């Protein structure tokens, strides 16, 4: 009964590439579905959406920052600007789930905050609960971003940056934007911690506050270059105000510039392939543990296999899964 409702992945892929909204929705539902039959179809769907185009098209932007920094209103202002420029936008908004012993439910309120008032065919928002995954961003986000990249010019992944979340967002976005709150020490603490890759673009929100915003911007400007990871990128700090709608075009210019920088340096495809590999390793480890990873030759071997098919690792992932499962069974 349930299986009969699962869509044909190849046909669905064609409709997604034609940017049919119903197909996008149905594809996202499939990717979220954990039933065995659905997983296989998911892999087929992602494979059908993969290829060279998937490594080079569109722009995947991760937006993170502390609660209260005004991420959602900023994303809303960003969407308005992109839509005015005629670019289509897909959004994945991630909210926290309650702890499993408290039911594991979630309130997904982001649509209210980021939605534009009128009906818009060129905007698609899916909210997600992080489902208590360590690292914050749900495992589902990466394949869902992959799907959205196939049919929207811009894909935004928005997460609340608390604790470990930023680690994950850095493993997803082509460009990671950190939204900073003026007059709060969070950003500096975060930069000083030095344990993680830093964001590519900083947006200091609420610039209408004046001096405190400028102060925060210059503090970030002083700290960021010291963390230098990619030599030729300048880590811009941008003053914006979501409520006054100022600085958004400049912010977008930085995003575009960062994407061009990655493409020109031949980094874009590599980055996405690397993020894809990280995801494959994570889901395998989550499902089977280190023991399972060892069954197919360990991390190094998995890395090699994935490198051979950089543009279509989802299929490879499903094969690795099947191999691990059959070895589990034979070791009984």
């Amino acid at each position, binding site marked *: 009964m349930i299986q009969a409702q699962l869509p044909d992945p190849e046909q669905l892929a064609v409709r997604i590439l034609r940017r049919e909204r119903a197909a996008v929705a149905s594809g996202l539902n499939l990717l979220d579905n954990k039933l065995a039959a659905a997983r296989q179809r998911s892999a087929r769907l992602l494979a059908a959406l993969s290829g060279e185009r998937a490594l080079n098209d569109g722009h995947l932007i991760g937006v993170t920052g502390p609660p209260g920094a005004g991420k959602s209103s900023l994303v809303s202002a960003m969407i308005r600007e992109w839509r005015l420029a005629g670019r289509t936008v897909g959004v994945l908004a991630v909210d926290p789930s309650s702890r499993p012993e408290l039911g594991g*439910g979630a309130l997904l309120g982001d649509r209210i905050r980021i939605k534009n008032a009128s009906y818009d065919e060129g905007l698609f928002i899916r*909210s997600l609960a992080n489902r208590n995954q360590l690292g914050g961003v749900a495992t589902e986000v990466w394949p869902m971003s992959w799907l959205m990249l196939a049919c929207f010019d811009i894909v935004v992944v928005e997460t609340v940056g608390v604790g470990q979340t930023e680690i994950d967002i850095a493993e997803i976005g082509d460009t990671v934007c950190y939204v900073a709150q003026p007059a709060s020490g969070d950003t500096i603490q975060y930069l000083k911690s030095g344990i993680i890759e830093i964001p590519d673009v900083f947006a200091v929100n609420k610039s209408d506050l004046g001096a405190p915003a400028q102060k925060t911007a210059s503090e970030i400007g002083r700290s960021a270059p010291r963390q230098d990871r990619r030599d030729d990128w300048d880590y811009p700090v941008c003053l914006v105000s979501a409520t006054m709608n100022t600085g958004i075009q400049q912010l977008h210019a930085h995003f575009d510039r960062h994407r061009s920088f990655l493409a020109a340096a031949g980094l874009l495809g590599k980055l996405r392939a690397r993020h894809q590999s990280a995801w494959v390793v994570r889901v395998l480890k989550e499902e089977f543990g280190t023991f399972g990873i060892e069954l197919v030759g360990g991390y190094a071997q998995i890395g090699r296999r994935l490198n051979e098919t950089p543009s279509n690792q989802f299929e490879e992932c499903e094969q690795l899964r099947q191999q691990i499962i059959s070895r589990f069974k034979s070791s009984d």
Partner: protein
Amino acid sequence: MDSLQTKRDRPWLMRTYSGHSSAKASNALYRTNLAKGQTGLSVAFDLPTQTGYDADSPLARGEVGKVGVPISHIEDMDQLFDQIPLDQMNTAMTINATAPWLLSLYIGLAQRRGIDATQLSGTTQNDIIKEYLSRGTYIFPPGPSMRLIADTINYTVKHVPKWNPTNICSYHLQEAGATPVQELAYALCTAMAVLDRVQASGEIKAGEFSPVVERISFFVNAGIRFVEECCKLRAFGEMWDELTLSRYKVEDSKLRRFRYGVQVNSLGLTEPQPENNVQRIVLEMLAVSLSKNARARAIQLPAWNEAMGLPRPWDQQWALRMQQVLAFETDLLEYGDILDGSPVIAAKVRQLVEGARKEIENVEAQGGIIAAIESGYIKRELVASHMQRLRAIESGELKIIGVNCFQETAESPLTLGSDGGIMKTNPAAEREQIERLQAHRKNRNAAEVQAALQGLDAAARSGENIMPSSIRCALAGVTTGEWGDSLRAVFGEFRPPTGIDIAIDSRAVLGKKDQVTELRVRVASTGEALGRPLKLLVGKPGLDGHSNGAEQVAVKARDVGFEVVYDGIRLTPQQIAQAAEEEGVHMVGLSILSGSHMELVESVLEELRRRDLAQLPVIAGGIIPQEDATKLAALGVSAVYTPKDFSFNTIMADMVDVIREANGLGRLGPLP
């Protein structure tokens, strides 16, 4: 017969909150009510009028003439007050975001009838704070909204001196779940915010502020705990006296009196055994009348059948007669304050005052009430209080006769009539209002309208008082939607925090503990069977802003393990269907309290069908008569929940079963 010689106090103003269908029908109702001894009018406007839309706006569909009278322009206002002398009437208008506009129409009409504005008396509710927190008919962000309130105060103090320009409402805070302490604290914080804003406007000369303070009146709620409620009102009086002296230096104690009108509690009225509401209403009326020094200036009582639908003229008459019996038959008005000197009352008042002071300090420390609304603090506090109340009802700790105890009942003859005991609005009202509006647009002088709207736009931008240009618009025949659109273009629109992001308090008991555990298991296992966690969209279509019910369902569903998408209020059916598609939900829950459920639910179903989502189960909740519930089921709605379904656990279990059935899984049945 001693009592005949005794000097009695003058009774309070007696009103009934009413208005429906059209200006003409409402006028007829008002004149009948006045003939029955009502001494003032209380106008209920429909939602398009309250939120600044014309009757032919797409957002107004299904809402015209439903919860009140539609007033689109000055001719409607004229018809509403046909044969009612404006200079002798005391008119209260429940109007907020569009208060300057409706007041302008009233003043404009008086001008046209040759009545001097100084002769007008009445009240515009005009309190935006509680709209953000509870009632939901806000339009603009807090900054411009507070400015519009200050504008009406500055204008009326000078030109309409007998008018109460704003009625600070604690009423709706109680409906949203506020405790007496929260009511006191947030209402007084609101009054401070309003008065501070007027002071900051600089329109009132230093030393002339006392008359402004004197014009501030309140609109209060009274619940069934009538001893505590009575104490709350005494506490209000004490605190207002102290605040106006210390903060605003009002020396004349007469100008520091706490003046308030009241509508008693609707939250506690029940759908089961609705006749019990009569005694509830009478007891609640005692809370605002017993203590002479804390007595209401105006009282309006709800009708016994409010939890079932719109009251009929006879139901409203019954409510009026309750007031008349208390005022004219009993000896209440022959005495001074009968509670003065009671140590029990004094102690309770002190306790409330102290609690409220603490919460006021807390809000002030956060930067005042506006900041505390923008941060979501107050909404979270209210949602938490309300949740606590619902949990207490569900656990049986809070007894509600006929609902969670003493449910045994004989069939009530009151609801047996062919009308089911409620009023039916005229289904043609919307079409007729649109026709009237469109004819009006043709008949007016376009150049005058344009000039008046330009003046309005200029005033909105420059910060000049909005009233003179609004009155000019009224006289030129501008419509409610045009006035609203002009200001929306300048001020923008606002979506406040919903408050549903409250942290789960693991210590709080969510209804019956074992039932919750069982529910979580059901939600999780059904999710596993379907391949992903159960996802629910809670939607509020239409213009109705009473979001408390929707929020409580959202929070409860989250508590038992649903992933809940809640988009706030005022959505079109198209937006709801689009959200259902984009979010990939397993079910759509619609909450509608304005009586427009038939039109709105039908539109949502239609929009879902257009997106190939005909199979998606839809449930509806609200004040929905049985007859309509049957019709909704025939349209394909899977379940309808009304106020008689007080057990959230039961509703949740049923929702899980609706999802299971829609996906070919068996129902799990009632909770153990």
